[in-house]
């Protein structure tokens, strides 16, 4: 049988990183197994290499080192100095015969086996409901929290974004702005459209609640794109239901983004014509 690999535990070592532990299955062939560990802020990457050439080891301590050849403040290292940071790890293995396998997991707690099964059932049921009945296809854009600072619009001393419509960083201050989009299904509540006259003229505001699966984990300032009506929402709050601290599903509070926002130029799906 083909080898497979699974991340069994991620331990947060605030504020200095994570300890990642994994195990192999079906590793019947004797020899050296070489592992590589990659880190990202979102499920689909892109991935930063954290370690490679780990031979016959089953744990790695990621301390978020500075990328070689870079320095602060132009290169922002990942850090855990925030209440809502999400980290994903991918571990790949190459066996003695050249066979490969990989696994991806988000850093977080794990329920025990019995409750984990209940969790799986709840997640599966929600997924069925969203895919078949009440959900719509969405693209999730997770905002980058670390990476290369945008040289076009960020003031390096104050670290403020001076041009919000910059297409190099999409107004986030970090080059590329968002991690690769993830497609899933979500349900959106009926919109609460409000028009008010303010000093900023008449403003149209629209907020809603969004129900979505437990992964990938979202946080404030992330973007949810509804493919059905092309509306884009910025998240304000995230609430989760949990079993033994492990997420079952997420409820998001979101506000619709104004139509002239630069985020509308960021294409989330290459299959749609015109590009969207």
């Amino acid at each position, binding site marked *: 049988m083909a080898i497979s690999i699974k991340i069994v535990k991620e331990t947060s070592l605030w504020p200095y990183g994570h300890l990642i532990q994994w195990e192999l299955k079906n590793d019947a062939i004797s020899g050296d197994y070489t592992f590589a560990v990659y880190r990202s802020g979102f499920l689909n990457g892109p991935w930063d290499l954290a370690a490679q050439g780990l031979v016959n080891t089953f744990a790695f301590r990621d301390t978020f080192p500075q990328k070689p050849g870079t320095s602060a403040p132009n290169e922002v290292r990942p850090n855990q100095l925030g209440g809502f940071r999400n980290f994903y790890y991918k571990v790949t293995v190459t066996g003695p015969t050249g066979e490969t396998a990989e696994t991806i997991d988000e850093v977080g707690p794990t329920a025990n086996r019995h409750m984990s099964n209940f969790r799986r059932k709840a997640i599966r049921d929600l997924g069925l409901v969203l895919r078949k009945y009440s959900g719509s296809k969405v693209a999730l854009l997770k905002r980058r929290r670390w990476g290369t600072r945008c040289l076009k619009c960020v003031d390096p001393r104050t670290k403020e*974004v*001076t041009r919000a419509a910059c297409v190099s960083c999409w107004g986030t201050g970090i080059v590329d702005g968002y991690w690769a989009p993830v497609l899933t299904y979500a349900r959106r509540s009926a919109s609460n459209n409000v028009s008010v006259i303010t000093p900023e003229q*008449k403003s*149209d505001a629209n907020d809603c609640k969004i129900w979505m699966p437990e992964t990938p984990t979202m946080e404030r300032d992330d973007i949810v794109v509804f493919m059905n009506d092309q509306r884009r929402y910025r998240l304000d709050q995230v609430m989760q239901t949990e079993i033994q601290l492990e997420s079952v599903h997420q409820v998001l509070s979101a506000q619709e983004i*104004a139509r002239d926002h630069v985020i509308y130029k960021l294409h989330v799906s290459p299959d749609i014509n015109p590009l969207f």
Partner: protein
Amino acid sequence: MAQANAKPYLGSTVLDVHHPDVFPSSPMALIGIFIAIIQDRFSGTNAEGLPYYWDPDPTPDHDEDNSNEKPRRIYIESQFSEFPDARDVLPSILVDKEETRADKQWFGHRGHINLPDRNEVYVMFTTSSMSILVGGRTRGESATLAEHIFMFLATCTPFIRETFSIHDISVPIMSKTTPQRRSGNDIEFWNTTINFQVQTKVLWRTKPIAPRLQEIRSKLSLGADKNHVDLDIEQYVGRT
């Protein structure tokens, strides 16, 4: 600075394009003047090298990337518009007038009296507080745009006064940049406020018509016969 069309009128002014109901130095006139000035500041050659420019059409072009080569359209209008042609556009510069105060300089506002015909000239100054909101999606954007407006107003005051016959414009005051949320349903944005005072001069004169009427009356009663001496003494009644 490009010259706007202006009609000097007794020390205050109004733009040609205003509605006839808008009187010189009225709230609408002052708001319109400063909107026109700031729109001009971000137009044509005045906006060269800036990452922002103004256009009457508020919809940004697709290839605008907020760089100096392809600047981003900016929205410049008045505050509290009930039916704006675009909503929630950022960055934006919104102009409005706060209170207007009448200042008394002399007793009874009297400036001059011409004794032979008893014409009197009165002078009054009105001080209007102007506010300009500079909105942006990020703190840095709001702050840097506000700095542009602030320095523009601070340095071009003499030219603005001369062009629009405004008596005085105070130095501007720029507030700190703070987050704002228009309603609970809305995303927050960043706002910087610039305040300054505009002083305009109001002149008016009075011409007493009672003596003039009585002159006419006395001539009528004397009639065309110059030898008639039946003087009508009623011409003196009522004068104290």
